[in-house]
Structure formats: C-alpha cells, structure tokens
C-alpha cells in the first residue's frame, strides 16, 4: 500500500515538475525620494517598480532594498555604505543626481560593489578610472552635442548664452556646451552659474538679454526651470531658441505651464516615439499605472534595474562575477541595445542615442533627429504669447 502511494507520488512529480523557486536576488536602489529633487526621483521609483514586475515575470525574484538620499551626497554615501556592508546586496542601482552619483561612485569602488547609475549625466563620473561604476545615462557632452548640432542645422546661430545652476550637473553641462559650441563655431557671449533656489533671476536674465544671444542654453532642475522661463518672459528675453539640458525642462509639470513652455527645446534620452523595444506599450502601461506620463529618467531607471536584475540572477551573489557580467553583457530593451564600453576617456559608459523634444502646446513632442521624431520642430522661437 505504502509503496503504491510512493510510486504514485513519484509519478505525479514526474508529470508536474516542482516549480523551481529561484532564490531572490538582493539588490539595492538609492534615489531622491524626498527633498527638492523628489519630483524627478518619483519617475525613477516608478520605473524601478515596473522593472521589478517584469523581472518577476522572467522568473527573477528581486529582494529590493530602497534608500532615500534626499538629494544630498553625504546621505547617499551613507545609504551605499549600508547597502554594501549591512544589507550585503550584490549590486546597486541609483542614485539620481550628478552630485550624489559622483560621491557614490567612489564609495562603490571602495566597497567593491557594482553600481549602475541610471540618469546622472555629469561627464566626470565615468571618467575617473573606476572599475565598479557603470552608467546607463548619456553624458552632458551628449546633451550639448545633440542640442547644438540640431540648432546649427535648423538655423545659423552665431552666439550662445549659458545659464546653469552651480551644481555638479549644471557645471558639467555648461562645460560640455562650451566645448561643443567652440567646435561648431558658435561664440559664447554670456555665461552665468547661478545658485539655485533664488526667488529672483531677473537681473541675471537682463544681462543675458543685453548680450543678445542667438541661443540660450539653460541647465536646471524642475522648479528653477519654471522660474527662469517665467522671468525670461517678464524681461522679454527672446532669442532664436531656448535649449534646456533635460532635467527640469523635460518634466510634464514644466510643459503644462503653456504660456512659458511653448517652443522650448530639451535634450532627452528616451521618448515614447522611439522604435526601441516596446517603448510605446511601456509608456501606456506607465501612464495607466501611475496616472502620469514618464520622463526619460523613468525609462533609464527601468532599463537599469532590468539589466542589473538579469545580470545578477546568474552570479549567485558574487559581486566580481556581476561586474564581469555588466562589462561583457549586451541587453536590448526600451533604450535600444545597451552595453557598457570604454571610449573617449569614459569607462563602463553606455553610448546613448540622444533625442531632442520640444514643448508644443503644453506637450513634449519628439522633434530631433528627424528619423526618430513624430513632429516637426518649431523654429525659430515663436516669441512670447501676450
């Protein structure tokens, strides 16, 4: 009798092989969940949520430990230290801003933990011979190149004014823009690094206006982007084009301020119009789930977590093996084909295909390069509505 039961059990087990529950992969995620950068941080959080869902569908269970750095480098470093030593994660995705990423990159090197930076663009982050830091995001050099090349093809701008916040991101973007402008023969006529959070940029903008630039390049996070454009309108600064370096100029809150955002260009790394992966469906899924449209930050964070999850699932908790995986692997998702290579003095850096979007009637539209775009750019700047 007993034998019969055992035999039956064995037979059943052959027919229905037990579902192999893979051990969960322990990963860390550092982000600006609260604090001044939180509106963009929210995009990263949501992107990661979708990635965890999709990884689960692929049979990869992720035990994700989230840390909030409030946008401050010292808190971000503490978070990384905790994840690396106490939680013993195998790899980390994050943080958001350039300042926090730059600080964390050095910490990752010290603790020998793979760090995949999704959306920070300061050039130097992947230019300091770090072995454990990888970056999905394009660099400020990429931002400036696509924007200024587009401008030179659409019009003949001769002069450029740069207004950037004096943060890691802002300074890096300004330097990149200067280098690219020199290559293209555009003359720099005004440059100002402002400290963010000031209620009044009017005097600075008045100076910029006096320099009569063809192009005004601005680098700022979300709140200052709106303030700068409002005050530009007040002052009557009206160049051939306003170009913004992603970040604050790419969020929907900025676009929704129609009377100050119409016609403003911004660099981006992803839009729903790109033919990569299932971008369109992903965009709709995101919008449905969170009730907001995603920025490129969300897509970058999603793809970073997908890459980290897939790479980490094969290494069994070995950080060195994960590092090798990230160095040699190739992935194909909503950012197109991704691999981390060394070029132009960068290490472990993705070569990003950049895009330019323009706010047209309160909505971001992809306008450049033309083969990836849904709409035609409005050029030159149509002027302020009265």
């Amino acid at each position, binding site marked *: 009798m007993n034998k019969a039961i055992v035999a039956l059990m064995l037979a059943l087990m052959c027919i229905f092989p037990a579902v192999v529950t893979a051990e969960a992969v322990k990963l860390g995620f550092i982000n600006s969940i609260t604090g001044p950068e939180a509106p963009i941080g929210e995009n990263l959080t949501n992107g990661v949520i979708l990635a965890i869902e999709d990884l689960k569908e692929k049979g990869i269970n992720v035990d994700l430990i989230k840390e909030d750095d409030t946008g401050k480098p010292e808190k971000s470093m503490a978070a990384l230290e905790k994840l690396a030593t106490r939680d013993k994660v195998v790899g980390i995705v994050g943080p958001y801003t350039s300042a926090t990423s730059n600080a964390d990159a050095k910490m990752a090197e010290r603790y020998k933990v793979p760090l995949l930076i999704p959306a920070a663009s300061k050039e130097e982050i992947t230019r300091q011979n770090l072995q454990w830091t990888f970056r999905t995001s394009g660099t400020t050099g990429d931002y400036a190149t696509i924007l200024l090349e587009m401008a030179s093809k659409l019009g003949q701008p001769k002069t450029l004014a740069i207004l950037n916040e004096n943060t890691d991101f802002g300074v890096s973007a300004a330097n990149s823009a200067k280098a690219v402008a020199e290559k293209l023969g555009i003359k720099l006529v005004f440059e100002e690094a402002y400290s963010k959070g000031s209620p009044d940029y009017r005097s*600075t903008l*008045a100076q910029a206006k006096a320099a009569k630039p063809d192009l005004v390049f601005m680098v700022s996070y979300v709140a200052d982007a*709106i303030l700068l454009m409002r005050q530009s309108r007040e002052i009557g600064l009206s160049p051939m084009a306003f170009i913004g370096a992603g970040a604050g100029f790419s969020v929907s809150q900025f676009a929704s301020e129609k009377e100050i955002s119409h016609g403003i260009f911004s660099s981006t790394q992803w839009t729903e119009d790109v033919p990569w992966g299932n971008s369109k469906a992903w965009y709709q899924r995101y919008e449905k789930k969170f009730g907001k449209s995603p920025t490129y930050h969300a897509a970058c964070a999603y793809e970073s977590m997908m890459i980290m999850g897939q790479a980490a699932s094969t290494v069994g908790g070995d950080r060195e093996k994960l590092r090798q995986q990230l160095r040699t692997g190739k992935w194909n998702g909503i950012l197109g084909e991704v691999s981390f290579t060394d070029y132009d003095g960068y290490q472990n850096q993705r070569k990003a295909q950049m895009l330019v979007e323009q706010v047209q009637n309160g909505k971001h539209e992809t306008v450049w390069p033309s083969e990836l775009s849904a709409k035609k750019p409005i050029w030159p700047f149509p002027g302020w509505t009265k």
Partner: protein
Amino acid sequence: MAVFLQSMLSGILIGGVYALIGIGLTIIFGVMRVINFAHGDVLMIGMYMTYFLFTLLHIDPFVSIVVTIPLMFLFGAFLQKVFINRVLGALPQNQILLTIGMGLVMSNAVMLAFTSDYKILSTKYSSSSFNILGISISSPLLISFAITIIITVALYWFLYRTDTGQAIRATAQDRGAAQLMGINVKRMSIIAFGLGAALAGTAGALISPTYYIFPQVGSVFTLKAFVITVLGGMGSIVGATLGGVLIGIAESVGGVYFGSGWKDVIVFMVFLLVLLFKPSGLLGTSKD
C-alpha cells in the same frame, strides 16, 4: 545702465517682501527676546494656505491675504500661548531649541500631508510684466510691493498711534517697567507673536505667485529674516524695513556685478561690515 536700473528695481521690489518677513521676526524678538527660528516655516504655512485657497476655492493669492492674515494671527497666538509662553523665562538655548523644534514639526507635518513635491501656483499674471524706459517690471512683484507698503504703513500706524500698539512698544522697551505701569505683558506677547506670524504668512502669500512652494522652503527665509533683523538692529521695525530692502538690493546688484554665485557672499559681506562698524545693527540701540 539699463541693467543696473533693472537690478536695482528688482532688488527693491523683492526687498519689500524681505522687509515684511524681517519685521515679523523683529516684533517677536523685541517684545519677548525670543528668536523665532520657526519664522520661515510659519511663512511656508502661509504659502500652502495661499496655494490651497487658490487651487480649491479659486481665491486670487493677493485677495486671499484677507483670509490668511487673521488665520495666521490666530495660529501665531496659539503657538505663543501653548508653547512659547512656557519658555519665556528659560535659558536662551532652550528657547532656540523650542522654536527650531516647532519649525521641524511644521515642515515635516506638511511634507507628510502634501509630499515634498514642488507646488507652483500659476495665475494669469504670474509671468506678466510691463516696460518703462526699457526696464521691465514684473506685475505680481509690483502688486506685492504695493501691498507690502500698505501693510507696513498700517503696522506703523498701529504701533505708534493706538494704545495697544504703544503698549507693545513699551513691553519691547522694558518688560518689567511695562508690567509695573499696568500693561498686560502676557497679552502683548500673544498679540506680538500673532502679528509676527501674520506678517510671515502674508509674505508667504505675496511670494507664492512668483516663487515655488515646498515643505522645506522655510529655511531659506529663516536665514534671510535673521540677517535682516540683525542688520537693522534687533527689535527695530524701521531697521528691519531698511534691512530688508538693503538685502534685496545687495542680492540683486551683487548678483549682476559679481556673478550670481557670489550673491550670498555679497549679502554676508554687507552684513559683516555693518556689524563691524555698528555692532547693534543699523538702527539698533544696544541694551543689556
């Protein structure tokens, strides 16, 4: 020249609002000798109040001060009666800890309730302006400056022409003597704190259409208010008015001629220079 005039004008207009913040702090200090480190957070509450009055009830930010002023006055009076009153005789560091603590509770409670998202209040005139002789003037800033002047004049009238106002000033001059003369100094303290809170809340309402709102916005203004108050002379209302405008101009003009990254350096240089040559502040009378 146009750039200079532009920056002077922007400085004066924004300085008017700074003055309002400074006056609130200086009244509180004058009457109670308590430095209110929660001043910026009170201003932040005023901003949120304005924001919700505008988005939910569609009350124009500049009109909404009619509601904001009495509400903020009551809020301030409540804070004074329940918290500040208990530490009036305590060590200064205890008072500082209490006000810092109140500020933290306010900013974090607001963050919990409304998240740390930046809120932007967009009115029809938020980015409108007009030109005079090539200098553009922001309409919302000009309106708020006009309101600032009206409120300041009304405040002066109240403090110099009414009995209650004189009683407040008497309490500020010498608390003990005022009490001996039959002035209810406890009530004066409540009124003073209420006034201070109402002024901070009004300043918050006036900045809202042109600035952005988030729970930690207060810290920016607490520091400014503190500088303005010390610069003008602790407890001096005229001094705070002057100090506010001076800081506004220093920021704006300094930003143009030295680069906006140097703005704060210029402000604090002015601050240090004044203190170096007149340690009690521009119009301060050194007591104690």
